[in-house]
């Protein structure tokens, strides 16, 4: 089982470094491409966590649709110039880094609290995240997910109308 640790550490290094580079670099196009790398690493994590369907959706929706939307807007607004925005003063950066370290210490400390033991042994393979498992759970009348699923359609409709109204030249 050592290979899963090897995969975990490789992907951890790649995802953390690319997300740091996303924040550090000044070119928005490079930020978007580094974020795509992070999303793909997270998608591989989903596969290792028995969430195959979510991994496919992550690649299609996040790394595909959402990041293409970001790149379209960057291209549309002509923001590709690296020196388009000056960086902030160093004081705000330092305070943000300090607060970030405090926050990460709190998060890691709370992550290391012993989790309650699982009712099912987590090592056993279950068809957890396959399309069948997701669909049976999502559309089952015994589960509370059917009504939020329908509400999501209204949410997407509102988002479509809102985006069109925002992007229109004159309302």
């Amino acid at each position, binding site marked *: 089982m050592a290979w899963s640790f090897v995969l975990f550490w490789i992907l951890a290094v790649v995802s953390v470094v690319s997300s740091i580079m996303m*924040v550090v670099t000044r070119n928005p196009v490079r930020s978007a491409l580094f974020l795509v790398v992070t999303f793909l690493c997270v998608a591989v*994590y989903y596969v290792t966590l028995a969430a195959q369907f979510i991994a496919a959706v992550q690649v299609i929706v996040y790394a595909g649709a*959402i990041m293409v939307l970001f790149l379209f807007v960057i291209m549309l607004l002509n923001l590709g110039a690296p020196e388009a925005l000056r960086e902030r003063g160093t004081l705000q950066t330092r305070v943000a880094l300090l607060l970030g370290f405090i926050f990460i210490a709190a998060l890691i400390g709370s992550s290391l609290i012993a*989790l309650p033991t699982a009712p099912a042994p*987590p090592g*056993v393979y279950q068809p957890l995240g396959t399309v069948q498992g997701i669909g049976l759970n999502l559309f089952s009348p015994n589960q509370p997910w059917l009504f939020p699923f329908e509400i999501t359609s209204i949410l997407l409709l509102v988002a479509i109308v809102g985006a069109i109204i925002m992007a229109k030249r004159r309302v």
Partner: protein
Amino acid sequence: MVPTPYYLVLAGILFTIGVIGVLVKRNAIVIFMSIELMLNAANLTFIALGRHFGQVNGQMYVIFALAVAAAEVSVGLGIIVAIFRLRESINIDEVNLMKF
């Protein structure tokens, strides 16, 4: 079989990088990307804990979070385009009309 706290710590690190990006950057689009990174870290936590407890409900939350993220990105980028039309800039320090 990587234990669950590894994934939780990694998600915490990614979330904190997103928080620092929101605090430090000026470009509104990069701030949006940092918010997406934070959403992804939260999704990773949901899925890791869902596997830990052997339940599929964590992945249900992730599906709805994905839909909300897609809606949020479309509306947010529409707002950014509108601000750019108004101000010819997306520097968020210049959009301070509500900061009195």
